């Protein structure tokens, strides 16, 4: 095993996949000379040259659409969109074309396109550089959505995403890129669509996404000191969503809290809660609780932003409401 930062796990995955398959190329704004705004693409231009690592003009629609044509012709593009917020300027090629190309052309094409983009508030970056919009994309048939919380998952999931024959949106949290974690020295993959139990527990199931996993684990420590045992489940992939793991945990604990940084209203927590009610209501002993951001844009001012991001304390509060 070796220790590696979250961001370097991205770089390693890209590096290994580009070396492994000549059809893989990286494309986006400032990923070559700039090495990615969060250093995700460090050293890759120098190592692979500008055929494989393409710096683009600020033209998200053009290069997202380019990825579709390139995939039709058999290539495997890895498109970087810096901030997930910028996906709004290339929704047409992504949602109308890439996500539907296999379907509307009757299965003639596969769409092995990976899109990397950052999520998350906490840097004072404000309403255009902090959003968590995963629910929008999970709502689109044809797309897959990945949100890893640890360096191990980052590397294994990104490699799987690049090898997947479907379009995969790979969302990393920009505020945890320096977090360290252990990964194997040798090559490994993490399959898409499989949740991971980050901590086993017996009293309450807490489903947490991306950097909220860290908050949930902090909450778990504090709650354990008070005699409450929570099971922390990290879905890792939002679509397809591993409801099986979540439901089997709920059958054990009979209580559920769902945590995501995205605004609570209409978030993926609603989908998870509804599915649990549809499929396992008889096992529930308490109302399902959701923890998410308030229904506001992401504020820049530090006190406001701090209050905006869901915290371990909020998770503890939600757990305690239903734990007894």
């Amino acid at each position: 095993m070796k220790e590696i930062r979250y961001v370097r796990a991205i770089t390693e995955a890209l590096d290994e996949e580009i070396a492994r398959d000549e059809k893989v190329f990286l494309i986006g704004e400032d990923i070559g000379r700039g090495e990615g705004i969060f250093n995700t693409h460090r050293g890759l231009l120098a190592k692979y040259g500008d055929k494989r690592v393409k710096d683009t003009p600020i033209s998200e629609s053009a290069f997202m659409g380019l990825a579709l044509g390139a995939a039709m012709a058999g290539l495997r593009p890895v498109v970087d969109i810096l901030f997930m917020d910028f996906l709004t300027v290339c929704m047409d090629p992504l949602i109308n074309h890439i996500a539907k190309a296999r379907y509307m052309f009757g299965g003639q094409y596969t769409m092995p396109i990976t899109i990397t983009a950052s999520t998350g508030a906490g840097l004072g970056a404000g309403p255009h550089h902090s959003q968590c919009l995963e629910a929008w994309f999970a709502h689109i048939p044809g797309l897959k959505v990945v949100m890893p919380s640890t360096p191990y998952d980052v590397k294994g999931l990104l490699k799987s995403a690049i090898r997947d024959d479907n379009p995969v949106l790979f969302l990393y949290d920009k505020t945890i890129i320096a977090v360290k974690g252990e990964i194997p020295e040798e090559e490994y993959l993490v399959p898409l669509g499989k949740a991971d139990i980050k901590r086993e527990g017996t009293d309450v199931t807490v489903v947490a996404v991306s950097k909220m996993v860290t908050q949930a684990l902090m909450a778990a420590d504090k709650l354990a000191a008070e005699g409450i045992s929570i099971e922390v489940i990290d879905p890792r992939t939002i679509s397809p969503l591993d409801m099986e793991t979540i439901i089997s945990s709920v059958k054990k604990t009979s209580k559920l809290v769902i945590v995501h940084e995205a605004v609570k209203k209409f978030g993926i927590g609603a989908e998870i809660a509804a599915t649990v009610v549809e499929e396992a209501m008889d096992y529930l002993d308490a109302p399902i609780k959701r923890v998410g951001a308030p229904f506001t844009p992401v504020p820049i001012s530090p006190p406001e932003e701090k209050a905006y991001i869901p915290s371990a304390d909020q998770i503890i509060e939600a757990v305690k409401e239903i734990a007894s």
Partner: protein
Amino acid sequence: MSSLSREKLLEMFTWLLRLRRMEEKCIELALSGMVPGWLHSYLGQEAVSVGVVLHLRREDYITGTHRSRGHDLVKGVDLKRYVAEILGRKDGPCFGRGGEMHLADKEVGAMGASGIVGGIVSTAVGLGFAAKYKGEDRVSVTFFGDGASNQGTFHECLNLATVWKLPVLFVCENNGWAEFSPQGKVMCVENVAARAAAYGLPGITVDGDDVEAVYQAAGEAIARIRHGDGPILLECKTHRWLGHYVGDPQKYRMPQEVEGVRQFDPLMRFESKLLKEGILTEEMIRETGEKVRHEVNEAIEFGKNSPFPEPQDMFKFVYAEEGAAK
């Protein structure tokens, strides 16, 4: 006299006639309610697809829009499967999923079409990118209208393709109408080709109702692009005979204008010229007409008799893994 061979001229004439007859039949199908959605008629614009696509090899790529209704046929899509697709039937190259607006047949390089008219231009840029990436000498040709040239993606694409010198021919079929809006109300330039100057690629305007002029200009452009000289914007000025879709009452259009456009008929223009030059005879016109009518009728019958997909087929092809959608 034309500088083209007699054989080439007759091939062009046959294609113009085939597209015209096929389109007339498809309009009948639409009026009888058999075409799901709308039919965006290509009547009057046939010289553009014939003049451009006849230069392409099977491995070259084309993309189009909702009004790309001849391009795919000239590129090699089987007439019968084409009709089946338009009718939403199983035997269409897209399994009936593409329909009239999203037809694709990868096997012949007809890569896809979209009613989001600027968006699909970027697909063609990607196809050109892939050709260059792999070191192939394929050319990617994208067909779109004057309306699409007002979408942002179009401008991003011209810039990107030029910066990277991609083998892409941008063919604007300027029929003067963006859905219900005349060009003069939505654009302050007369020629879409003028927009090329802003991005540093050549922009050329030709009479899109003159099949020989289109063929000539497209031939030169494609040769340069295949040689590696970078993208070109070719604008073909043409006319839309019908409304935005079959059945469009065209309240926005003056009746004189609607009647007037038929004087530009690319088929009749070419036919008269070939007759005058002695390349065609009345008898050849009759024979070709008979042959084409037979092909078209056969295709229409095939399409009408092709089965629909079953409702449960809707779960196919959402993801590369079968059944993943359920």
